[in-house]
C-alpha cells in the first residue's frame, strides 16, 4: 500500500477532518503572519475541492462510498456514506467555499481588518460543519455537525454591522437553537423506537412501525426544525436580518450554502431516513411541503419588492428561492425532484454571485441602498454585468441556470396535476423581474447626464475572478444542464423516490 492509497481510502473522512484541523491551525498560521491566513485557507479549500470532486467521480463511476469511522461497522459505529446526493452537495459546498475564499481577501481586509484570523478560522469550521452534515450517515453525528455549522454562522454574522449584526446573530441563535433542539428531540424519538442511529439501518427498521405515533411526531419535529433552518416561510424571520448584517463574504457564504445544506438535510430525512411511501402517501407531508413552499415563493418575492437595501432584497429573494427547491422536492415526482435538486446547484451559483456583487459594490462605494446605485454601470462595468447575468438567471431567462430548474419545476407540477404551482412559478418570475429591474434601472438608467463624468473604478481582481467565474457558470449550466441532470440528478431522483436503486 502506497501513501497515495492511504489517502484515497480515507477521502470521505478527510473532506471533513482537513478543514477541521486547518481551522484550528489557522490561529497558529496567523500568529506567524496574518497574511498567510488567506493562503492557508486557499490551500485547504482547494484540497477540499479536489477531494469532493474525486468523491463524486468515484460515486458516479463505481457507486456509493461507505466509510466506517475507526473501523467500527455500522450500525454500532459511525458511518460516512457518500452517494450521488451528498457527493453533489459536497462539491457545491467546496466550490462555493473556494469562491468566497478567493473573494474574501480584499473584502475582509477592508471590513474586518482586526478580525482576519478569527474570520478565517471560523470560515473553515463552518465548511467543516456543512461538510459533516452532508457527508455523515449517522443522525446524531449529523446533529453535532449541524450545531458546529450553526455556531460558526452565528459568529460570522455577529462580526458584521456593528450592533445590527450582533442582534441579528442573537435572533438567529435563538431560532437556530429551537430548530436544533427540535431535531435533537426527533432523533431521540427515532432512537427510542428503533434503537439505531444509522440512517440506512433506520430506513430498514422504520417501515414496520410506521403506525406508531412516535414516528409521526419525530417526522413533525424534523420538518419544523429544518423549516426553521432553511428559512421556510413563515419561519423565516431570522433570515433577512442575518443575511443583511453579516460581512459581505460571510453573507455570500451563508446565503449560498447554509439554507441549501438545510434543504439537503430535509431531503435526506424525508427520503432516506423515512421512506417515500411514508412522506408521500401515509402522512402527505410532501404535499404539505409543496403548499408551504408555494406560499414562500410568492411571499418572499413580494417582500423582496418592498426592500431598498440590496442585501435585504436578496435575502427575501432567498426565502422565495428556497421555496423552489422545496416545491420540487415536495412534488415527489422524478421531474419535479430533478428541478428541486438542480435548483440547489443553481441557486447556490446565482445567490452567491449576487451577494458577492453586493459586497463588491459596498467595498467600492459603501452603498447598499439600491436607489443610490446611479452610474454604477459606468463605474463598475464588470461587477454590474455579473449582477445582470445572475439576476437574469434568478428571473429564469432561458440560456441561464434559472430557466432549467424552472422548466423542470413547472413540468413536474404539471405532471403532478398541480396547475396552481405552475402559475405560482410563472408569477414569481414576474415578481423577480419587478424587483431586479428596479436595480437595473438604477444601475444603468435614470440620470444620463449626471453620470457622464464618472470614472471607471472596478473592484479588485481577487473579487472579480470569483464573481465572473460564477456568472460564467450560471450561463454554462444554463446551456449544458444536460450533464448534471444526466449523470447525477436523474438517477438520484429515481433512487430517492424508490423507483430505482443508487449505483
Amino acid at each position, binding site marked *: 500500500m502506497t501513501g497515495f492509497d492511504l489517502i484515497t481510502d480515507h477521502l470521505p473522512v478527510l473532506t471533513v477532518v482537513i478543514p477541521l484541523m486547518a481551522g484550528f491551525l489557522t490561529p497558529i498560521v496567523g500568529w506567524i503572519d496574518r497574511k498567510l491566513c488567506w493562503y492557508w485557507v486557499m490551500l485547504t479549500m482547494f484540497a477540499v475541492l479536489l477531494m469532493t470532486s474525486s468523491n463524486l467521480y468515484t460515486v458516479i463511476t463505481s457507486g456509493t462510498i461507505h466509510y466506517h469511522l475507526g473501523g467500527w461497522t455500522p450500525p454500532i459505529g459511525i458511518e460516512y456514506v457518500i452517494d450521488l446526493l451528498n457527493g453533489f452537495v459536497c462539491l457545491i459546498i467546496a466550490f462555493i467555499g473556494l469562491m468566497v475564499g478567493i473573494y474574501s481577501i480584499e473584502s475582509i481586509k477592508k471590513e474586518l481588518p482586526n478580525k482576519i484570523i478569527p474570520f478565517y478560522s471560523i470560515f473553515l469550521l463552518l465548511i467543516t460543519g456543512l461538510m459533516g452534515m452532508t457527508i455523515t450517515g449517522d443522525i446524531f453525528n449529523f446533529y453535532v455537525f449541524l450545531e458546529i455549522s450553526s455556531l460558526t454562522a452565528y459568529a460570522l454574522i455577529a462580526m458584521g454591522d456593528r450592533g445590527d449584526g450582533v442582534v441579528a446573530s442573537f435572533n438567529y441563535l435563538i431560532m437556530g437553537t429551537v430548530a436544533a433542539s427540535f431535531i435533537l428531540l426527533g432523533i431521540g424519538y427515532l432512537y427510542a423506537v428503533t434503537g439505531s442511529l444509522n440512517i440506512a439501518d433506520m430506513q430498514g427498521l422504520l417501515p414496520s412501525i410506521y403506525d406508531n405515533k412516535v414516528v409521526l411526531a419525530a417526522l413533525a419535529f424534523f420538518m419544523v426544525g429544518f423549516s426553521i433552518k432553511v428559512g421556510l416561510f413563515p419561519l423565516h424571520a431570522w433570515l433577512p436580518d442575518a443575511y443583511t448584517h453579516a460581512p459581505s463574504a460571510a453573507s455570500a457564504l451563508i446565503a449560498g450554502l447554509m439554507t441549501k445544506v438545510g434543504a439537503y438535510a430535509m431531503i435526506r430525512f424525508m427520503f432516506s431516513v423515512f421512506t417515500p411511501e411514508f412522506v408521500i402517501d401515509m402522512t402527505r407531508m410532501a404535499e404539505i411541503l409543496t403548499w408551504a413552499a408555494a406560499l414562500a415563493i410568492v411571499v418572499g418575492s413580494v417582500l423582496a419588492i418592498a426592500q431598498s437595501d440590496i442585501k435585504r432584497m436578496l435575502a427575501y429573494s432567498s426565502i422565495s428561492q428556497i421555496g423552489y427547491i422545496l416545491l420540487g422536492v415536495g412534488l415527489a415526482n422524478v421531474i419535479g425532484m430533478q428541478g428541486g435538486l438542480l435548483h440547489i446547484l443553481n441557486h447556490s451559483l446565482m445567490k452567491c454571485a449576487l451577494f458577492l456583487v453586493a459586497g463588491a459594490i459596498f467595498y467600492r462605494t459603501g452603498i447598499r441602498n439600491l436607489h443610490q446605485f446611479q452610474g454604477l454601470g459606468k463605474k463598475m462595468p464588470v461587477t454590474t454585468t455579473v449582477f445582470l447575468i445572475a439576476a*437574469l438567471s434568478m428571473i429564469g*431567462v*432561458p*440560456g441561464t441556470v434559472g430557466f*432549467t430548474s424552472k*422548466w*423542470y419545476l*413547472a*413540468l413536474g407540477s*404539471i*405532471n403532478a396535476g398541480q396547475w396552481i404551482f*405552475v402559475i405560482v412559478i*410563472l*408569477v414569481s*418570475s*414576474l415578481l423577480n*423581474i419587478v424587483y431586479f*429591474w428596479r436595480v437595473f*434601472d438604477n444601475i*444603468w*438608467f*435614470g*440620470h*444620463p*447626464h449626471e453620470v*457622464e463624468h464618472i470614472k471607471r473604478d472596478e473592484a479588485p481582481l481577487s473579487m472579480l475572478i470569483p464573481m465572473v467565474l460564477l456568472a460564467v457558470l450560471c450561463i454554462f449550466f*444554463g*446551456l*449544458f*444542464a*444536460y450533464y448534471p*441532470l*444526466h449523470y447525477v440528478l*436523474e438517477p438520484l431522483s429515481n433512487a430517492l423516490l424508490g423507483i430505482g436503486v443508487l449505483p
Partner: protein
Amino acid sequence: MAIETVHSITPALAVLVSMVASVLILAFGKYPNIREGWTFVAAFIKFSLVISMLPLILEGKVITYTVIEMLPNLPIAFKVDAFGILFAITSSFLWIFVSSYSIGYMRTLKEHAQTRYYFCFAIALSSAIGIAFSANLVTLFLFYELLTISTYPLVAHTETSEAISSGRKYLTYLMISGISLLFSILVVYHYTGTTEFSFSGIAGLETLPRTTLYILFITFMVGCAKAAFMPLHAWLPAAMVAPTPVSALLHAVAVVKAGVFTAIRVILYVFGIDLMEISGLWLYMAYFVSITIILASIFAMTQDNLKKRLAYSTVSQLSYVVLGAVLITQHGITGGMLHIPYHGFMKITLFMCAGALIVTAKKENISDMNGIARQMPITMLAFTVGALGMIGMPPAGGYITKWYLLLGAAELDNMILIGVLLISAVLNAAYFFPVIYVAFFKKPDKELTYKEAPLTMLVPLTLTAIISIIIGIWPDAPGMFLDIVNIAVANVTGGGI
C-alpha cells in the same frame, strides 16, 4: 412529401455574427468610426450568410444544425425552412439600411450612450435571426426573451422619466407574454414530449380535449403579444418615445415581426392546418384579428403624432399577416406570409421618413407639417410610396398581399372577412392621405427652403422605397419573396402549387 435535410453550421453562424459584433462594438466603444464600422461589417456578413442558404431552400431542402442538448430531449437547434429564411432575409437586409440610418440619426442628434445603443441593436438582430431559424419552441423562446431584454435599453434609451416608464410598460407587456408563451410551451411539451416545429403541426396535440386546446391557443396568442394584437397592443405606441431607428427596428425589422412570425409558427407549425380547421380555431382567430385590423385603423386616424399614427398602422397591418395564416387556404397563407417582408420594406420607409422629419425639420406632429414636401421632397416622395403600399395601391408592393388575402377570403365565401379587408383598405387611405395632402398641397406657415436629411439617412430611405416598388411591380422574379413564400406554403399545405 419527403424533404431533404442538409446539415450545416451556417444558420448558427448567421446568428452568432452580430453577437460577435456586439462584443467588438463594446471593445471599440471609444472609437465611434470603428465601432460603427463593425456594425456594418456584421450586417453585410449576416446578410451574405443568410442569402448563401437561399439556393438550398429554393431547391426545397431544409438546413438543420443542433447546437447543444440543453436539457435531455430539449436541444437548442436551428432549422432553416422557407418561412424562416423569409423572415431572416427581411431582417438582415433591413438591418443594413437601419445601420446606416442610425448613424445619421444618432450623430445628428448627438445622442448619448451610443455604444450601448449599437451593442443592444446587434444583440436584438441576433435574436431576430435566432427566432427565424429556431427548430423548436424552446430555442424560439430563448431568442424571444433575449429580444425583449436587448430591446429594453433601446426603448428606454433617452432615460427621461417618460422613456423609463414607457420602457417599463414595454417590459411588462412583453414579459407577461413571455411567461404565457413559456406556459404554453410547457403544456405542449407535457402532452406531446416534443417542441419541434413540424410542417403538419406537432403530432399528439389533436388528442387534447377541446377546452384545453382552446386555452392553449389563447395562451399561445397572449405569448405572441409582440405581434401587438389588440388588446395587447398598448406597448407599441408607448415605445414610440424611443429614437426613430429603434422604432424602425421594432416595427419593421425585429420585434413585431418576431411576434407575428411566432404567431404563424404556432398556428401553422405547432397546431397545423388540419387541427386549426377541425377545431374551428381558424374562424375565431380570423374574427379576432379582424377586430384588431379595424379598430387599430380607427385609432390611427385619431393620432396627430406621425410616429404614433404609424404605430397604430403597424398594429393593424400585422394582423393582416395573422389573418392570412388563419384563413388556411393557399392564397390566404401566401398573402399573410408575403406581407411580412412587404410590410417590412414599406413600414421601414415610412419610419425613416418620420425620423428624417424629426432630425431635419424638427417636426413630429402632422398638423405642423404643412407643405413640408417643399423642404424635403425626396423624403416625402418616399413616404408617399410607402403609404400607397400600405393602402394597397400600386406601384408599391402592398396591393399584391392584399390581393392574395382577398382571394383567400373569397375562396372561403366569407363575406365578413372580405368586408373587413375592403373597409380596412378604405380606413388606411383615410389616415394616410391626409398626411400626403398636408405635406404636398397645404401652404406652409412660413417660407420653406430645400433642406434634405443627411445622406446617411436619405440614401437608405430612398433605397427601401425603390425596393418597395420593385417588389410591387416584379413580385415573381426568380428567388424573390414570392418564390420563397410559395415553397413555404407548399410545405405546410402538403402539396405543390
